């Protein structure tokens, strides 16, 4: 109960930060939208042919789920910067000397970031639809997709918290997440792994983003999902649990 009350206070603080300093939020929405414009509007014809569809109208059906996932990834990663900024300032020391739930600072960050990421992902979906993205998913499929994206957001946000706690300064905290943001490119986000060279292809097939993208595609575009759904859930749960445990330990240890 206390933890919930304190986390809610911290969440209000984080949402205020997002409103007062919207540059980060805007960047996380703008990046995937630019990707969408770039990959569909500029490279769409060539990539579409490569992927097997005749035109860029078909390609948007392939790439949009990938870009939506990138929106989630880049949204979550902002958390590492805000956590790191907090840790380098005196306010966290103040919180630590107060009789409040220790983890509330982190849960406040995670809750705030999840709200922001899900909103910015929604914006990206809207742009994709405006650009001609059409799904044949049912309401149930959409609910499944929202559930999957929420799980992924939760897992990646905790991972970002760990990165923020590990980083020595905000610059470092904004660099390490680039790896995670780059991963979807080496998966099935833009082009199918089958088209990649052998080594990269092996990596692309087994890295966590690929099953999530494939599940999302399955739900929204009606392609076969198969085992990918369960592999996705397992990856999300695994990343979330490991990151959460690490984050708590790092936070309690830090200085």
């Amino acid at each position, binding site marked *: 109960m206390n933890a919930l*009350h*304190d986390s809610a*206070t911290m969440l*209000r*603080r984080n949402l*205020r*930060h997002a409103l*007062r*300093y919207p540059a980060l939020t805007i960047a996380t929405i703008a990046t995937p939208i630019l990707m969408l414009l770039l990959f569909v509007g500029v490279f769409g014809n060539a990539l579409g042919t490569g992927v097997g569809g005749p035109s860029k109208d078909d390609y948007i059906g392939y790439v949009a789920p990938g870009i939506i996932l990138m929106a989630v990834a880049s949204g979550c990663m902002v958390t590492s910067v805000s956590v790191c900024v907090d840790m380098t*300032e*005196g*306010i966290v*020391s*103040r*919180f*630590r*000397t*107060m*009789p*409040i739930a220790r983890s509330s600072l982190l849960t406040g960050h995670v809750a705030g970031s999840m709200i922001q990421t899900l909103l910015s992902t929604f914006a990206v979906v809207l742009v994709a639809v405006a650009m001609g993205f059409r799904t044949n998913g049912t309401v149930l499929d959409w609910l499944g997709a929202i559930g999957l994206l929420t799980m992924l957001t939760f897992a990646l946000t905790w991972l970002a918290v760990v990165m923020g706690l590990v980083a020595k300064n905000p610059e470092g905290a904004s660099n390490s997440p680039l790896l995670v943001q780059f991963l979807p490119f080496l998966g099935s986000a833009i082009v199918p792994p089958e088209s990649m060279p052998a080594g990269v292809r092996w990596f692309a097939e087994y890295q966590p983003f690929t099953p999530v993208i494939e599940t999302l595609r399955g739900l929204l575009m009606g392609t076969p999902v198969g085992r990918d759904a369960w592999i996705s859930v397992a990856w999300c749960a695994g990343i979330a649990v490991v990151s959460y445990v690490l984050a708590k330990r790092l936070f309690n240890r830090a*200085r």
Partner: protein
Amino acid sequence: MTNSVEQTAIHVAGLRKAFGDKVVLDGLDLDVRRGTVFSLLGPNGAGKTTTVQILSTLIGADAGDVRVAGCDLARDPEGVRRAIGVTGQYSAVDGLLTGRENLIMMADLHRLGRAAGRRAADELLERFDLAEAGRKQAAAYSGGMRRKLDLAMTLIGGPRIIFLDEPTTGLDPRSRRTMWGIIRELVRGGVTVFLTTQYLDEADQLADRVAVLDGGRLVADGTPDELKRLVPGGHVRLRFADLASLDAAARALGTRTRDDEALTLQVPSDGGVRALRELLGRLDAHSIEVDELSVHTPDLDDVFLALTGRPENEAAPA
């Protein structure tokens, strides 16, 4: 909440802390009575901040027995946290929030309730002369305003013991006096204050007891007056035009601490007007011309030189 009748707010025995192989606190003992101001005095790196960080549950100690507000620090840190408030050396305010929002956040964390929290925030803003600034983001505040907001945030939970780690370092003289006024007012309200400072005059102004920390140990402990008596640094420095005048003055005043190269003489004195008048009178009586006169009151340097027995100390008259 523990509200024991014992008169000790903070009890520390044998406190030790090392970072790697650098020993910061080497067996610290101290007692702070309830409702008093205790000042821990020391140069940079003496271990003042480390002491505050340990006593305020921020970092752990390697060894030692510590009780704060009757709670054992090692076994009941939550109990300690319920009783204390901390204003650290580096401002612990949220720059993106306004002053008022910062205070309301603290009120929420202390479970004051919505209406009571807002009332308390507005009262504190009024009391610290921040009512106008309360609507602005704290990032735009001056150093003095930030420090005041910081202290207001510490006070909103009604702590019984307050740790102030160098609360006036970097403040201009006016903000400094304002801060002193606020601290005095707190103590009148029954709060215990644990204050660290580099400034002897600050300890002199505020503290009931002063302890001097050097190299992780207390080298002196007493009232400000007791401490100053340990410091033989107060003197008047006279400079003469030539060696003859210096010789004459040294004979007339019977002082041994002379510097033939600089043509100066150090005369022990409290630097008061009466003492100066008497000193100049004696020089006049012997028709000795003084080129330059300067008064040196004891400062922290003198305290440390005196207490740690470093070479400079030998020059001071016993």
